[in-house]
């Protein structure tokens, strides 16, 4: 099922590559001892190195290097033991030195891959070209004054990982799935918090179009700084449509940088052509080449947490959950951990059902996350235990869960308080059923003359009479027996 856009001259295929800027989780900045924490009073998380004072020298933060290596391992990528920092030269008010320190010719991480899951159940591999370390710029604030821009350098010099994908993406859906998967991996490893609202993950989107079957790529445009997965998907659609119109009108697409305006749902040219990028990269003479040891890489690898794909496979194998269930349970480590706490010592399949169903519904309803869940994993496990040992039936359990969310009481306390214990006394069940049958003589006759569907009616009436507490299996069994008398 390939994604195609239909133009006036037939179908078009889209080709997309993403450059993701992911802010590295670290205490201090990439080359200075100033805090890398988000926010803070303006210009307080700034050292004289970050402010580009003369004579200040950058000193590389080892943890940022470790974070890049960990991420590379998570992307099953080549780790380059030799890498180097280059200066990317351009002038902008929020870049005090007049250059960004980046890695151009020799990035720390080479080719890797990301496996993405698509809605139709298929899986695609998206290639990663490279990952390199670089500095973030400061922040320009344009809305405080009619003639001036305000500059806050708190972010200047914070470590970023630029993760460049191959042009392997063929639909907006794949772009979204790639970003979600990448964010999941980064969050699992703890190298980026993936918070797109705070700008700790942003994407530059490279888009081109071509006719199905063409083997060469046509000219691409780069949409800068898109800050949500939804906008990335929208911008691809809008930009592809624009390019198709240009080609179909007999024009050619110019390679340029564009901006996505989600309000107007259009992309606009960002930089004029005479300003075409000429960054004049050269090796930063303030920094020696970075050489790391294989044994250090091995240490970092040994200390990595279980990654999403491996966790999924293990949950499927150990607990017998389906591929769909494992994908939902592994979206975040905290959810998977919660599930495993419930599933150990409970019916694992039942646990998956309840997590994905009533439990997530309760979280949504209360607006809570798994971390501050109103019901603990142990609490949910106790509830499921009461179902498994026939203390309560599934229907009553839903009621108990709601009560647990409401009051914070334990499942067994609620069952006792409300007298919800399931009736397994066959005598009591039989007498309830006899009353129902006696009161519905006409229906009993109909049933006996072949109207089988009425069985459900009798079950419903019995359960109602027993306030939902009848053991469903026993009710069924007893009903069958008495109706065939």
């Amino acid at each position, binding site marked *: 099922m390939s994604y195609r856009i239909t133009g006036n001259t037939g179908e078009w295929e889209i080709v997309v590559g993403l450059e993701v800027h992911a802010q590295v989780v670290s205490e201090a900045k990439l080359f200075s*001892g100033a805090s890398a924490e988000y926010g803070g009073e303006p*210009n307080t998380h*700034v050292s004289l190195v*970050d402010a580009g004072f003369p004579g200040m020298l950058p000193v590389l933060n*080892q943890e940022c290097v470790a974070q890049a290596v960990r991420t590379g391992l998570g992307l099953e990528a080549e780790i380059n033991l030799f890498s180097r920092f280059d200066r990317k030269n351009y002038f902008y*008010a929020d870049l005090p030195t007049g250059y960004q320190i980046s890695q151009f010719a020799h990035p720390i991480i080479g080719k890797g891959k990301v496996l993405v899951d698509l809605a139709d159940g298929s899986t695609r591999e998206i290639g990663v070209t490279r990952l390199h370390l670089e500095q973030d710029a400061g922040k320009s604030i344009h809305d405080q*004054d009619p003639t001036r821009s305000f*500059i806050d350098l708190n972010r200047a010099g914070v470590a970023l990982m630029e993760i460049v994908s191959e042009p392997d993406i063929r639909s907006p859906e794949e772009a979204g799935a790639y970003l979600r998967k990448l964010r999941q991996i980064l969050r699992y490893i703890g190298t980026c918090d993936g918070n797109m609202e705070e700008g700790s993950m942003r994407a530059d989107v490279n888009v081109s179009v071509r006719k199905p079957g063409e083997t060469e790529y046509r000219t691409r445009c780069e949409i800068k700084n898109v800050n949500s997965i939804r906008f990335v998907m929208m911008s691809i659609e809008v930009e592809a449509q624009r390019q198709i119109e240009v080609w179909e009108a007999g024009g050619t697409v110019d390679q340029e940088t564009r901006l996505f305006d989600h309000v107007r749902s259009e992309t606009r040219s960002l930089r004029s052509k005479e300003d075409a990028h000429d960054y*004049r990269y050269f090796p930063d003479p303030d*920094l020696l080449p970075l050489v790391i040891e294989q044994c250090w890489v091995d240490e970092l690898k040994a200390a990595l947490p279980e990654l999403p794909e491996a966790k999924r496979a293990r949950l499927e194998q150990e607990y017998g959950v389906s591929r769909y269930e494992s994908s939902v349970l592994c979206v975040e480590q905290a959810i998977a951990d919660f599930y495993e706490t419930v599933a150990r010592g409970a019916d694992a399949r039942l646990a998956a059902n309840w997590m994905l169903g009533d439990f997530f519904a309760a979280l949504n309803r209360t607006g809570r996350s798994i971390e501050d869940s109103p019901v603990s994993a142990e609490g949910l496990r106790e509830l499921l235990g009461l179902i498994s040992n026939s203390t309560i039936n599934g229907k009553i359990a839903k009621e108990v869960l709601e009560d647990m969310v409401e009051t914070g009481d334990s499942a067994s306390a609620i069952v006792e308080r409300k007298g919800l214990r399931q009736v397994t006394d066959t005598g009591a069940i039989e007498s309830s059923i006899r009353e129902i049958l006696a009161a519905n003589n006409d229906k009993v006759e109909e049933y006996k003359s072949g109207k089988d569907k009425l069985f459900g009616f009798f079950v419903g009436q019995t359960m109602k009479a027993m306030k939902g507490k009848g053991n469903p299996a026993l009710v069924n069994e007893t009903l069958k027996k008495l109706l065939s008398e």
Partner: protein
Amino acid sequence: MSLDAKTVTRIARLARIGLRPEEVETLGQDMGSIIDWVEQLKEVDVTGVDPMIGTGLAKPRLREDRVTDGDCRDKVLANAPEREGPFFTVPKVVE
């Protein structure tokens, strides 16, 4: 060799340096002779020799991931041509 006016203007623009027309010609000649001088290096055969970045004798010193600096806004802003409260200010730049 002299650099042509177009190249000189482009280099000046990239460096955000404003040039008067007569300077374009003088600078073209100056830069041309600098390049000629450096080009003497081409006489050396470096086939099979890796470009030298640093001496190769030292490894970079790395820093621990600890906050040891910052919180010095007055110093940071001391040389600002213009400021407003805690911010640097510059002529409005909006793309």
